[in-house]
């Protein structure tokens, strides 16, 4: 009985995780390599922004003592990000930003973005529901975004 409950609870948890990630869902790979259960916060200076498919990437130099550690952040695709309020030039080289990220499980300095705080204080997530964004009319039928 307990095992059955754990199985059901596990499936429910999986469903919730999938739903949460759904907004940022990739078209092309699993997120299992990222530790989504244990996000961390990193702050630093943007060195590169690649507004590309299948993913947008932001590179960041994060100060560590006298030096800096270089981090790579993977984001959703341009389409998914734009639906979440991003523009291709929302972040620029030289910007000082703070990011909450899910780090790679293997310890490498790579990550999946959860949310990014821009120099002006605006906070952007890692995507948005389909079709919701600037210039797009809200749905006529009330539904929960996927």
């Amino acid at each position: 009985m307990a095992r059955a409950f754990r199985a059901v609870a596990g499936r429910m948890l999986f469903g919730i995780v999938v739903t949460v990630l759904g907004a940022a869902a990739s078209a092309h790979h699993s997120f299992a390599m990222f530790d989504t259960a244990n996000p961390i916060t990193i702050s630093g200076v943007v060195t590169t922004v690649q507004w590309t498919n299948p993913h947008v990437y932001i590179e960041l130099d994060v100060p560590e003592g006298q030096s800096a550690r270089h981090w790579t952040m993977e984001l959703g695709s341009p389409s998914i990000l734009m639906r979440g309020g991003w523009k291709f030039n929302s972040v620029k080289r030289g910007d000082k930003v703070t990011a909450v990220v899910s780090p790679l499980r293997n310890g490498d300095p790579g990550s999946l973005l959860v949310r990014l705080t821009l120099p002006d204080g605006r906070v952007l997530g890692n995507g948005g529901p389909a079709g919701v964004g600037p210039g797009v009319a809200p749905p006529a039928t009330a539904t929960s975004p996927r």
Partner: protein
Amino acid sequence: MVSLVSRVTASAVALLTLIAVVHGPLHAQSNPRPNLTGAWAPLGGRGADPKVAPPPAGPIVLKPEYAKPYQDARAADAAAAKRGEPVASASMSCVPYGMPRMMSVASYPIELLETAGQITIVTEAFSEVRRVFMDQPQLPIDEVPPGFYGHSVGRWEGDTLVIDTVGIKESLAGYQNIPHSDRMRITERLRLVAPDVLHDQITIDDPVVLEKPVVYTLAYRKLPGYKMVEFVCENNREYVDDQGRVRMRLGGR
């Protein structure tokens, strides 16, 4: 003279009115086909209005010789994902999905375009394109070169667009990763269940692999004014290492 012109004008107006009265409703009644042109976004089942939510998917019943390998592969995938080492997939290498998976990729919209004799379906993810040739007989499977989209023909049955597709490559991962043979046939029934909600009931029939057809329904919400975004897979940083693990290529400065 003026009187004659007035009488002619009045007669013409009356005739046009009669034509409009008689033919207008007749035309409407004889043409229940909705115009599906436009962008549509996947509609999540959870939280959706029950009146427009898609029905639950039917069971997947494979023939015994396919069932165990399928279950073993699913279990291995789940275990690998749990270890944080997901199994590589074709899409991870930026290979498009093809039919039928292309019809539902994450939250990416699709676009339907109706033109004379053809309905074209374009997906935002990977910019995949299907062409549905209307009111033509389907080709024998053995005359269709196996591909990602096969050969699709369509017809209207009242308010429902019925699409028949054959000729999908055996190497493509199917719905829920089920295997399929070159005998697979996909039948879709697209119908508006609300003015802005479209259902696509998909039936996969494969006499070689399946004990019975698999049936599931995708739902979409219309996106008025949405402009499809380009998707060219130019910067793929995921790769498979020599241990078969999916890794992410980290960037330099």
